[in-house]
């Protein structure tokens, strides 16, 4: 695992692409493309969608390859890719984003919540940071049962200023819990640049406060991120405790789809647009001879196709009705709910994100 890097090292890390198999490299990049297309569709359908454009490398790199029995707690920005990589139906996700009854929460929860039964910490309220504590609790459950399941939890740079970030990482460090914390550092909290609200450049510098390894990475290099995650996940699985990974990227879109902006320099946006992680990752694949130019085109084609089918299905789905409002489901007084599913089978999670 890379050690704590200084901020200036961010873009200098050489991509460790060689450590990842060609199939997984392809899987990672296909996931990024899917996210790009899916997110754009959500933005078009819902002006209040929170676009993850530009941040795909972090999301793909963080969640790719988790076991189905692991738990993922994705940040609210861009979680659909994480859901899709672990088996969610694209059309139900799009339905969720536009509030249809076929969404995973029957219209009850926020548009970016996910399929809780696929091993996610779902978004059930809007308070940022609190889910880091819940994710840490899932890791406590795994540690308690002595299993080798792990949790991967992502969050924004701004969210690391919340007290709940501190308390959760501290607790995980004290108990050496099997969790990897990933800061999806896009340099913004709504309209505020991180230099206005974060007193440090690198969030990885918060790791030593917990005696935890901190890893600062180029957040636009999906292979570097995934390589670091493999190490950190292995570390967690082995009982060696938590890691804080920081992936520094840039929010290419607005805070929400219809954000009028105006609080940042167009030159900055242009500069980061040049570093767009999606074409960069595709180019890496071409350079490595894994695909050729027509392969690139067909990945995009496929993504557009699968997403447009999902959109059509979602749009055809009904709005939630009174039935979906419901009272809280009746709970048998002594009912137990064994929701652990059997793990360790099939291809790496994330490789089949494209269903439907």
């Amino acid at each position, binding site marked *: 695992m890379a050690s704590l890097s200084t901020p200036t090292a961010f873009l200098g890390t050489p991509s460790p692409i060689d450590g990842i198999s060609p199939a997984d490299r392809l899987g990672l990049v296909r996931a990024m493309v899917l996210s790009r297309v899916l997110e754009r569709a959500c933005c078009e359908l819902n002006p*209040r969608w929170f676009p993850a454009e530009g941040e795909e490398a972090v999301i793909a790199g963080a969640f790719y390859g988790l076991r189905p029995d692991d738990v993922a707690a994705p940040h609210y920005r861009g979680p659909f890719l994480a859901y899709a990589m672990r088996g969610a139906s694209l059309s139900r996700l799009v339905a969720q984003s536009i*509030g249809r009854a076929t969404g995973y929460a029957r*219209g009850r*929860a926020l548009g970016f919540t996910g399929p809780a039964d696929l091993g996610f910490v779902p978004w059930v309220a809007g308070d940022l*940071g609190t889910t880091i504590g819940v994710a840490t609790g899932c890791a406590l459950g795994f540690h308690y049962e002595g299993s080798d399941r792990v949790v991967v939890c992502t969050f924004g740079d701004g969210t690391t200023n*919340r007290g709940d970030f501190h308390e959760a990482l501290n607790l995980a460090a004290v108990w050496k819990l099997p969790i990897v914390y990933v800061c999806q550092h896009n340099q913004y909290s*709504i309209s505020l640049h991180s230099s206005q609200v974060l007193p440090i450049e690198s969030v990885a510098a918060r790791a030593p406060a917990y005696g935890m390894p901190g890893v600062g990475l180029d957040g636009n290099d999906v292979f570097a991120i995934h390589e670091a995650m493999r190490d950190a996940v292995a570390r967690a699985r082995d009982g060696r405790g938590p890691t804080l990974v920081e992936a520094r990227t840039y929010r290419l879109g607005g805070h929400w789809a219809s954000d009028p902006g105006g609080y940042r320099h167009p030159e900055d946006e242009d500069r980061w647009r040049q570093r767009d992680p999606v074409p960069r990752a595709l180019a890496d694949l071409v350079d490595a001879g894994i695909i050729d130019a027509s392969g690139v085109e067909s990945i995009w084609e496929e993504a557009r196709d699968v997403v447009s089918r999902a959109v059509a299905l979602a749009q055809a789905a009904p709005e*939630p009705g009174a039935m979906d*409002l419901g009272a809280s489901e009746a709970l048998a007084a002594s009912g137990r709910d064994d929701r652990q599913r059997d793990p360790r089978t099939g291809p790496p999670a994330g490789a089949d994100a494209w269903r439907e």
Partner: protein
Amino acid sequence: MARMSFVEGLVEGMRHEMRRDPDVFLMGQDVGKMGGAMGGSRGLIEEFGGHRVRETPISESAMVGAAVGAALVGKRPIVEISFGEFLPTCMSQVVLQAANLHYMTAGALTVPMVLRTRVGDGPYRGHPQCFEAWFAHVPGLRVLMPSTAADARDAMVAAIRDPNPVLFFEHMWLYHGVREDVPDEVGSFDLDRAAVRRPGSDVTVAATGWMVHKALEAARLLEPEGIDIEVIDLRTLAPLDLDTVAASVRKTSRLVVAHEAWKVGGIGAEVTAAIAESCFYDLAAPPVRIGAPHFPLPMTKPLRDAFIPSVEDVIDAVKRVRAA
């Protein structure tokens, strides 16, 4: 007379006090260049600069703590928690610090701060939680929830001048409603008084926030049927102005209490219980409460619409309380 929307009233109230008193400042997330969530501080940074309109990290507890401390050393901070849904993240500063300081220091200290926050259903449906009943339960806090543009401005001014910690709840649905006539002069807002928005003789409807407007709409719809509602805007939720409600009930003999928060354990419970205690013999029929049903607040429009008390719910309740 100026014409102002609710949010313009809020901003005008802050501007008025910031001009008058250099100790008044605002802090919150995105309150500067962006103009605040839903335009809630639009124009202030341009006039007062970044020193007095301060951007904060996402750390609600520190934000409120910062306001408490600044107030203790003589400043008049307004701290903005973007949405009431985030109040659970900073309860100890509000309830254990701000609320206690005056009493526990035997009057040596005061905490002249305003905590403003957005609540209720809104055009974007986000963060709608209404936790005002929690704060009304805690001694040492004032709790306000204006429902008109004039009150938004004048209550803000009064809250800033008050030496008590004030929780100021701004209903999102009212933010960008139609502009109202608002007197040019800032009025003296009585922090201890509810407002009778419509006098009436048959049924008292005591309501908060957006529900005040729904109650007025219900009154309009019921007029042709010869039913004459008195609509009270509770607006000062702590201390509650029970005298105004009691006076009305003594006249009408019938009480409906309506709010958007969950009915169970809401402000309506206190109003209803207090009136049952003090005006038992004046009541001709059982009081009726209207509030949200007892399950979590759903997010999508169809469910939200089914969840939140409506004009029809008010009409129903009025008819029930008259039939009884």
